[in-house]
């Protein structure tokens, strides 16, 4: 039934139209509604995930943190302990410790930094590709530690490079470092491309 717009019609006509709509729906309901994903083959249908760009980027970044080799002093041994099978940072996709800062995105500052060495550390940091993070490991990395008053020691890496996570200890045990890495992973997970990486 065609009902022209603006036509003033009687109640019976409306009722009849309603009845026709219901009858048509009832007629169609005898057949099952076709699956809208039917055009996908079975295997492909199970392998599509929908997500946001932020989620996928953050997942990729936090799961492949590659540390650069920049271990100026003794905390390095605790880092090596963390890297070797007992503590095994390869669980986090971190076992590839890069000799080139251009392939790394994490700097673990394991050890005392002297002013003579500071330009090299800054240079390593500058050569790392964005996005990049720094974990200040150990008392010397945080504040210069027991060498704080020395004429030759930098009182904390944050005078040279921006630091994301501070891991205290002298030296920190590998468990502590793993906890620090976990904190950094949580921090990375909060990044958003909308804010340009800021949280």
């Amino acid at each position, binding site marked *: 039934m065609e009902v022209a717009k603006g036509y003033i019609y009687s109640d019976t006509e409306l009722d009849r139209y309603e009845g026709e709509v219901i009858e048509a729906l009832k007629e169609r309901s005898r057949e099952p509604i076709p699956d809208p994903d039917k055009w996908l083959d079975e295997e492909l249908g199970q392998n599509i995930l929908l997500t946001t760009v932020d989620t996928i980027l953050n997942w990729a970044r936090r799961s492949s943190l590659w540390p650069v080799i920049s271990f100026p002093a003794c905390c390095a041994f605790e880092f090596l302990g963390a890297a070797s099978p007992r503590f095994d940072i390869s669980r986090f996709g971190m076992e590839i410790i890069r000799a080139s800062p251009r392939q790394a995105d994490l700097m673990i500052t394991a050890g005392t930094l002297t*002013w*003579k060495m500071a330009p090299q550390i800054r240079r390593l940091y500058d050569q790392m590709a964005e996005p990049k993070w720094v974990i200040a490991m150990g008392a010397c990395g945080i504040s210069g530690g027991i060498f704080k008053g020395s*004429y*030759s020691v930098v009182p904390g890496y944050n005078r040279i490079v921006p630091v994301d996570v501070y891991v205290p200890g002298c030296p920190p045990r590998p468990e502590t470092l793993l906890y620090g890495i976990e904190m950094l992973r949580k921090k990375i997970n909060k990044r958003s491309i909308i804010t340009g990486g800021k949280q």
Partner: protein
Amino acid sequence: MTAALSGSEIAAKLKKKFAEGIVEVSQNSLVVKSEFLLAIASFLKTTPRLNLNYLVHITAVDYHDYFELVYQLMSLKHNHSLLIKTRCYDRDAPSVPSVVSLWRGADFQEREIFDLMGIRFDGHPNMKRIFLWEGFEGHPLRKDFQ
């Protein structure tokens, strides 16, 4: 085990040639005047019976009134060693003769002493700082630093 030569025994041997160069003698060391250092060191190195041909280390001590330089010498042939010292009283511009011409191993150690204690070594081929950077003020291992 390396035998430590007695300072007084060596002093007795040096007496003939360097009588006025010897300041103090003790059982295990020998203090010489810095003007005679090079001559005495050369004598100790070249005399066949002593043949102190290896410089183990040089170090410097700040005694407030003077600096004392300590040289540990050793003979690889006779397996004996000797400690000789020299003193330097000028606090503003201290200098002693360099022994690089006798023992090449003294090169970096003398630069280290210059860097941290501020003692110049006359005759050193490359007398400049080794640990600290150019422009660092003062010599940090001096007792009156900062």
